[in-house]
């Protein structure tokens, strides 16, 4: 209502000024709208074109790719290239096929995102809802780890993994990346906004801490969980340095590592068509996660439940 009224007065004022057609509700002129759109379109092209080009290259034979210019339209090698990558065992990385690589990456990304969310939910739950000795100390310790990303603590972490015999295992890939101060703080902030009355109502209704967590806290956090899942999945999927260190065997490689290994310094040795296929495959799961989860958190944003 209020917006309509504002819009109506806006238009009538504009009409009085005799420039009605040139202005929309926000009072932005048509010309500047065109310019804004042009900039956005250019931006999209800059981002999208390399991806499109990668896809095009993945449908041509190696010979075509090596003989520039590369055509701008898909070639006829789509099925052959993808079949070879997925089932044939990609040459330079020791006969591991792309399925294995995708599986490794998926396990790692899922492990990291689910693990991070589970751990952060629980630690935020403890910090916000329980009064235990040293609560603030723990809070600050978690907070301080924000300043210690994987790269900073990579050598000691590597040593620990070696001692535990976790080199070349999924646990080794996942565990060191699970602790997350960011997610813990995010959940903490959210939990602090939950009204005290709701917590007390649950107590009166006979919900102990575990029931409260499961029946009330988790459902209320689901949009936060969805958003974090997307972010953390992509974070896990794109990990490079840690998987590089902690995996030796080719069959434990993630797709990102494998992609790097496939590119040889001598250009002639590189099977560019398969590299392109692998690149496209590496991009797909994060895109799918974003597309699928987006519906969830947009829904969550529209239906604010609190």
């Amino acid at each position, binding site marked *: 209502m209020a917006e309509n009224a504002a819009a109506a007065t806006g238009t009538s004022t504009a009409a009085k000024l005799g420039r009605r057609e040139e202005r929309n509700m926000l009072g932005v002129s048509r010309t500047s709208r065109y310019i804004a759109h042009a900039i956005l379109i250019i931006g999209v092209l800059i981002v999208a074109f390399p991806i499109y080009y990668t896809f095009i290259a993945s449908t041509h034979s190696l010979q075509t790719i090596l003989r520039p210019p590369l055509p701008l339209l898909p070639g006829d090698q789509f099925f052959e290239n993808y079949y070879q990558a997925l089932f044939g065992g990609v040459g330079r990385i020791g006969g591991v096929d792309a399925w294995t690589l995708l599986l490794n990456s998926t396990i790692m990304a899922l492990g990291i995102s689910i693990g991070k969310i589970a751990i952060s939910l629980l630690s935020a739950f403890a910090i916000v809802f329980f009064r235990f000795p040293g609560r603030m100390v723990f809070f600050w310790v978690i907070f301080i780890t924000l300043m210690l990303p994987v790269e900073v603590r990579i050598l000691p972490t590597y040593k620990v993994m070696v001692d535990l015999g976790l080199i070349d295992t999924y646990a080794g890939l996942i565990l060191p990346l699970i602790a997350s101060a960011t997610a813990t703080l995010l959940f903490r902030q959210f939990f602090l906004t939950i009204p005290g*009355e709701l917590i*007390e109502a649950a107590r*009166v*209704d*006979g*919900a102990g801490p575990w029931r409260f967590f499961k*029946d*009330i806290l988790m459902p209320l956090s689901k949009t936060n969980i969805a958003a974090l899942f997307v972010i953390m999945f992509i974070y896990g999927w794109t990990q490079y340095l840690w998987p590089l260190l902690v995996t030796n065997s080719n069959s434990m490689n993630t797709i990102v590592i494998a992609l790097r290994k496939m590119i040889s310094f001598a250009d002639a040795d590189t099977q560019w068509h398969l590299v392109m296929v692998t690149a496209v495959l590496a991009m797909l799961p994060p895109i799918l996660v974003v597309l699928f989860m987006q519906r969830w958190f947009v829904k969550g944003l529209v239906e604010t*439940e609190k």
Partner: protein
Amino acid sequence: MANVELKNVRKVYGGSVEAVKGVSISIPDGDMCVLVGPSGCGKSTLLRMIAGLETITDGTVSIGETVVNDLGPVERDIAMVFQNYALYPHMSVYDNMAYGLRNRGMAKDEIDRRVRDAAATLGLAEFLQRRPRELSGGQRQRVAMGRAIVRSPKAFLFDEPLSNLDAKLRGQMRVEIKSLQRRLGVTSVYVTHDQVEAMTLADTLVVMNAGLAEQIDTPMAIYEKPASTFVAGFIGSPAMNLLTAKVADGGQGLALAGGGSVKPRDTVLPEAGREVLLGVRPEHMVVTSNRSTADLTLKVTAVEILGADTLAHGQPADATQNGGEIIARLPGGTKVEVGDVLPLAINPGMAHLFDAATGKRI
């Protein structure tokens, strides 16, 4: 169902803030006790101690014959209705009401029967599948009530349950709560700062001030014989007029501090020379035609026409200095104008005397 007994209950927050300073109340089975008082006087704190949501620093709370000091809300078997309803936003109305029963491990069909009964009683039958955010304020309030009644607890506890509703709905819900409570016969404690709610709902009214119970009695007894100037000022609207006065020599009347004198009928005056506060409710004064029978003459400084009543504000006409404002509630349609001088008679026996120093009733 059970009686609720508070004995010398105290609450000290963080070792220094004494929110409740020793309150004893005895609520018979099935009665409704209303705690009323200004903001920050400790009403909610007291209620939450009964609920088991707050630890009890000192004293005992018993429900039935059991001392419940060390029991949690569940073992105390109470149900609470919160000011902001505290409905679970992600659950349907049905689930909101059923949740507490499920946690107690009740059988599914029994839960279903109780929830549908409560929904029918409260007129919520058609909303059972909705989420709280799809309901109006009044409907949410009913769901919160429903969540309490499905449990058939030993006691209902209400913390300002109507303060988020508009005036009309509040009046309507007030009546509904009262009749529901009567019908179910569940002992209830109801916190409010609205004196109309307090008067209409209470079997026992507790007027609280700064962590203490100033007076505990039936609403009518409190209205008729307020124990202190605080209670006198809090219960009744507009508030009771309080005038500083001194008992005249020979005990023949009261000399008002602002000038002039009053001789209330049917009132026993204390010893001469004592400083007192004379309290008269605005509705206990009438305009007399005869100046000689008037106790007070009011020089009108403002008039409020409310329809059913007319409120005349003013000062005693023979006041030589400002001795406090007086409000008289006159029948609607009384012709009064600013500047009029009204001869007023205090209804016999309707003058209240309080000690000037302590504020206690004499």
